[in-house]
């Protein structure tokens, strides 16, 4: 398996398409995703409270904190899988409370999500899974086959395109999930512990892919408890590190 890189011409085409496809949103704030004084409670206890976050276009954020602090919950609030129990969440300037299920589905086409335990349709090939967002959006076009091939090459899965997801290794699954997350040229990529199940070498590869996306203008938010990964990123890209502690979000200290 060679080193994953985005072929030069393909990268330019991809970046151009990203820019071209980008719809402008009219929010009163400045972030593509904004949480304003948000709280979230599960049943009895409050997991997150008085939490505000703005993801500015093109920014690169890390979200850290101990296990169970609410990193995944915060990400879910960011892509509308959960609705805040108090406060306002806005996706592309639109208040989540006023979005119906179809609006949420439409916003998912602009937000790529990578989970730690990424799930696929196990009866479809990797290539079909990566192209699934295009299929479900009803935008399948012949020229997207090239696009898909480039993307598969970018994440280094060209040879595994015909495999079924259960046959993939952990790192391959993460890369397939990343390819699936970005095939619609999203404006935001949210990754939840993308390097949780892979070795250091693979996590570096995934990080490079995410940094490349960010250089093309994609807003990136990575939830991780892996401080080494954050340090590695800091040397390559300007990042902001946020930490969840005591139900609240803090800017992480300089010790990172």
């Amino acid at each position, binding site marked *: 398996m060679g080193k994953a890189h985005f072929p030069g011409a393909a990268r330019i085409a991809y970046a151009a398409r990203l820019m071209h496809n980008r719809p402008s949103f009219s929010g009163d704030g400045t972030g593509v995703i904004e949480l304003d004084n948000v709280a979230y409670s599960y049943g009895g206890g409050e997991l997150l409270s008085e939490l505000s976050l703005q993801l500015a276009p093109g920014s690169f954020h890390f979200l850290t904190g101990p296990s169970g602090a609410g990193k995944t919950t915060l990400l879910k609030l960011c892509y509308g*899988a*959960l609705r805040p129990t108090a406060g306002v969440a806005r996706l592309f300037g639109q208040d989540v409370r006023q979005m119906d*299920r*179809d609006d949420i*589905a*439409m916003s*998912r*086409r602009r937000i790529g*999500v990578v*989970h730690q335990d990424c*799930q*696929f*349709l*196990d*009866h*479809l090939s990797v290539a*079909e899974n990566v192209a*699934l*967002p295009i*299929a*479900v*959006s*009803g935008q*399948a076009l012949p020229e997207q086959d090239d696009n898909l091939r480039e993307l598969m090459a970018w994440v280094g899965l060209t040879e595994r395109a015909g495999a079924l997801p259960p046959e993939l290794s952990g790192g391959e699954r993460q890369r397939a999930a990343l390819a*699936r997350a970005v095939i*619609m040229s999203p404006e935001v990529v949210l990754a939840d512990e993308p390097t949780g199940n892979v070795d250091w070498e693979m996590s570096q590869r995934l990080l490079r892919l995410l940094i490349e996306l960010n250089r093309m203008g994609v807003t990136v938010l990575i939830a991780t408890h892996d401080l080494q990964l954050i340090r590695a990123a800091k040397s390559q890209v300007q990042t902001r590190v946020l930490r969840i502690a005591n139900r609240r979000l803090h800017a992480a200290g300089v010790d990172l």
Partner: protein
Amino acid sequence: MKATLQTLFALGRGDKAADRVVPPTGFTARLTLFAAAAMAFLAVFALALSLAAGRLATSWGDELARASTVRISAPDGQMAAQTATALRLLQQTPGVASARALSEAEQQALLEPWFGPDLPVAQLPVPQLIEVLETPEGYDPDGLRLRLQAEVPGAVLDDHARWRKPLIAAASRLRLLGWASALMIAATVGAMVTLAANAALAANAQVIAVLRLVGATDAYIARAFVRRFTLRALSGAAAGTVLGIGAVLLMPPAGETAGFLTGLGFRGWHWVVPLLVPPLAAAVAFVATAVAARRVLGGLS
């Protein structure tokens, strides 16, 4: 409503990609097919029963209603005179097409099943029967009865209404039962498809979660299930209908002396009715799956 229309259009168009996102299921698919086929088979019989009962009620109502009988019981000497008077009176009655006194041989034939062939009818005080055929407009039985009473004291008009009415009522009730059965069958198909669709939606929770994550709308996800169940119900019901029609065709033909049961079958345009069973089953499955999918998907986060 909009989503339903979209689903309907997509159903006609067909969407291979949408079909493939839900993994194929062998066993439950066959069960749905079988249940749809069995229900269609039963539906064909229920419809045949309804339509036959309807025909029976109509024929008893229309054809038999046009025939009635005048019975004259009189002492020997007056029989001929009273019969002649009654015949004249009947012929003058508006609404009576014809009136004819039965001959001795005909009366004997009528009594034969009860008394045997050797009965000397002439020597018994058997009343004289007059067969009255009505015009389609019919006559006024009460008026006729009054006039007969006045002029022919021994005459009794029997317009068959007395025994016809309960038969017509029974046939109508039978028809109602047939249609009710057909409705129950349709409802059962709906219930069965709802159960199967719920099971399929539950079994494919992960598929649905993945589809939602990558931006599929509820309509898209529902379509994959709706299309599948609609086609299953359609093909299952088609097979069941073919078998049901075949079974109806195998019923012995209705002859002259045939009773009610051998008349069970389809006549003329009634043949169209069983052909409606498969599309109706498909429509029921479509609605049932769409409702089930909307309810399940709407309950997800």
